[in-house]
């Protein structure tokens, strides 16, 4: 008994390791130096810098984001105020730096919650199959019929303003996508030889799911989550732009855009820089996500 379980384990490990190694080798081949790699490198640097802004805004911002210097309102960008000042006399650069935290928080937590819920539903649906699959997927189909931004708007409007509600709204609206991808992936993986082998050797279904099927199904979901991060931040900025967001001392990028848009013709810098911050971040995340997607794409095998 003991012996057979041990054999099963080692067989399963070997079979599970095989596709992973394959992925890594391919990924290595993709990381040759070139324009695309340079772009990815820049994107990584941007994301690291923005993450630093979110974690340690005090070290980067030259002013307090709440300090209203009414003697210096609506000043154009200068060597003192890199991004100018807004109509309260607040330093726009400091506001953008401090606003990073909530903007990223919305994006990251919305993706995390969305992946968690969507991934779980997809995994259960794909692995159990049968009636469970039918019921869960029809529910997901219903959600899929509603455009994501509309769903998020409706949820945010129903729940009222607040960081948590924005995160929930965006997360729920992204669930169907994650669930679909996860289910498809699980259904492919569970028919692989190493899964059958592991089953045949008597491993419990839950153990097979957790040890073999899940780890090998995650890659596409993670790529999708990376790309979704940009979309989530954009959606979060959109919701707070529309005023469905949080009313707080330090506005996030979307709220900054919204506050500055009335001044577009007289003080372009108030909403241009938060807008650029959003663009830069979403762009960087997409570049990284694209790169990663290509790296793990089985269809590209042998082409690189």
């Amino acid at each position, binding site marked *: 008994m003991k012996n057979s379980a041990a054999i099963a384990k080692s067989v399963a490990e070997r079979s599970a390791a095989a596709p992973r190694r394959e992925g890594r080798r391919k990924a290595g081949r993709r990381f040759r130096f070139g*324009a*695309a790699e340079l*772009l990815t490198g820049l994107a990584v640097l941007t994301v690291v810098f923005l993450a630093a802004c979110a974690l340690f805004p005090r070290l980067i911002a030259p002013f307090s984001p*709440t300090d*209203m210097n*009414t003697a210096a*309102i*609506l000043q154009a960008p200068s060597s003192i105020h890199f991004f100018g000042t807004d*109509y*309260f*006399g607040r330093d726009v650069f400091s506001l953008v730096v401090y606003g990073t935290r909530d903007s990223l928080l919305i994006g990251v937590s919305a*993706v995390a919650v*969305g992946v968690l819920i969507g991934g779980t539903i997809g995994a259960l649906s794909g692995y159990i199959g049968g009636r469970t699959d039918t019921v869960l997927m029809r529910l997901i189909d219903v959600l*899929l019929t509603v*455009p*994501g*931004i509309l769903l*998020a708007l409706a949820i945010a409007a129903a729940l009222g303003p607040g960081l948590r509600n924005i995160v929930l709204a*965006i997360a729920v*609206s*992204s669930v*169907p*996508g*994650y669930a*679909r991808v996860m289910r498809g992936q699980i259904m492919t993986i569970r028919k692989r030889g190493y899964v059958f082998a592991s089953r045949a050797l008597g491993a419990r279904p839950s153990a097979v799911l957790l040890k073999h099927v899940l780890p090998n199904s995650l890659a*596409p979901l993670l*790529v*999708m*989550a*990376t*790309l979704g991060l940009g*979309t*989530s931040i954009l*959606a979060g900025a959109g919701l707070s732009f529309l*005023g469905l967001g949080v*009313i707080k*001392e330090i506005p996030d990028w979307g709220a900054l855009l919204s506050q500055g*848009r*009335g*001044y*577009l*013709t*007289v*003080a*372009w810098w108030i*909403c*241009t820089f938060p*807008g*650029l911050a959003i*663009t830069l971040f979403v*762009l960087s995340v*997409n*570049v990284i*996500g*694209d*790169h990663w*997607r*290509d790296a793990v*794409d089985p*269809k590209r095998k042998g082409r690189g």
Partner: protein
Amino acid sequence: MFGIQGGKQNAEQKKKSRAVYPLAALALAVATALSGCGAAAEGGTAQAAPGGAQTSAPVQGGELTYALATSPDTLDPRRSGLAVSVRVFSALYDTLLVRRQDGSLAPSLATEWEASGDGLSYTLKLRQDVKFQDGTPFNAEAVKYNFDSIIDPDTKAANALALLRPYKSSEVVDEYTIKLNLETPSQAFLGNLSQGMLSIVSEAAAKAEGEDYGKKPVGTGPFKFASWTENAEIKLTKNPDYAWGSAEAKNTGAAYLDALTFKIVPEEATRIGGVQSGQVLAAETVPPQNVVALQSDPNAQLLQTNTIGFPYTLFFNLEHKPWDELKARQAVQYAVDIDAIVKTLYLGTYERAWSSVTPGILGYDESLEGKLKPDPAKANALLDELGWTKGADGIRVKDGKKLTLHYVDGSPNREKRNDIAAMIREQLKAVGIETEVEITQDVATVVYQNWDYDLYGNSQVNSDPHGLTSFYHSTKEGDRRTLSGLSDPEVDKWLEEGAVEKDEAKRAEIYKKVQQYISDQALILPIYVFPYTVAAGKSVQGLAFDPFGYPIFNDVYLQK
């Protein structure tokens, strides 16, 4: 759809950077567009815009397009609750009286008026040459129908009801003479007859349409109703029979314009941009930053008039601790720098308010101007005296409770009121008061039902200081309370005296006492007097405003 395109997106797509280019291009385009706008606004020549109408012979014909910031609720003056509706009423309807710029009353549909000795009734003589736009005659019966229907609960009258009180009944003396009876004497009553909400509607049309009358209005004004497309536009056409313009209008005959179209354009930038690009000829409520830019625009003019009534005022809720204490309220008054707020947010285009009423209202107390000066040291001393001590985070604490102020304001951000809240929050933080700013779309519930605020702001266009009653007079159990929640028999007595005092000078003195009391007791923070601003193309001539800030369309013509 969030996220979904990531997983499925073109697995066969070879160039990974392809997806990047459109985004980069977009970013560039946006940046270019933005800097372009900035340059255009700054590059205008420094020619000063003329303040108002130029004098030359009026031109007949043409259509004036006038962009409104919000949509009227109804075109039935009896049932409306919005100032924006009154802007349309001023074209569609006439009132019995009008108000001159100096505040006195002038004839309009009524030519003469007389109060009875006891102040309980007014006899009005009416014009005899007036017809409604549906052809029915204007007479004493029409006035009686209007006022009786306002006090009829089935009509569900809105602001008109408050303005008409204490009206009781009408007696038709002859076809063109009417006697209006009141429940109690009221010095505000006659003046209220000049307000647009008490415009006279056609009885035949109102009865025929019933609840739908607000969509098919018929008045006696210089323009008649043509069509209303919800949230888009209201079209009016010239009333060719009009020949009874009030003594205050320059043009007492038919309008110069053939048509008047109100467009509803809520987005500030679009509204003002529409004037600059010529899509509309005029647009109301110009944001301060655009006022400054428009003044140097050679193709546009800026018209501005201050409104009268009660300025934008922040009311303390006297029923909430610790703001029931005078010293606590005074501390807030000393901590808040209203001058800095008004100058910063409105860039010198709004006047700062000093009292509970605006200049131009009977009894306005000029001695209050300059009285309240910010003094954080005094604010700190007062709070120390009350036993509030600063904690580690800089916020004051007493008996384990933080000193917080619950500041409620409505959404959307009308006249930058939310930004006032943001500035006050910073200023109060400096003396150790924590301000929780709640922005709600549902002011009706939060403020007027739950009374869940420590500080809430409100303003009102009005013609008479009697309106102070609705803010500071005590209320009976079961009645709707006031925003301040003040209950002081002395103030009640003054307000009741003011309502009936016939001698103008004595009446002014009474309302001065009320204003001084409000100031001494630190009941409010008066913030700004709202100016009604209109951006207009250079061709628009003759546009003037009544003392309430409502446009007079009959005088407008388009210079070719």
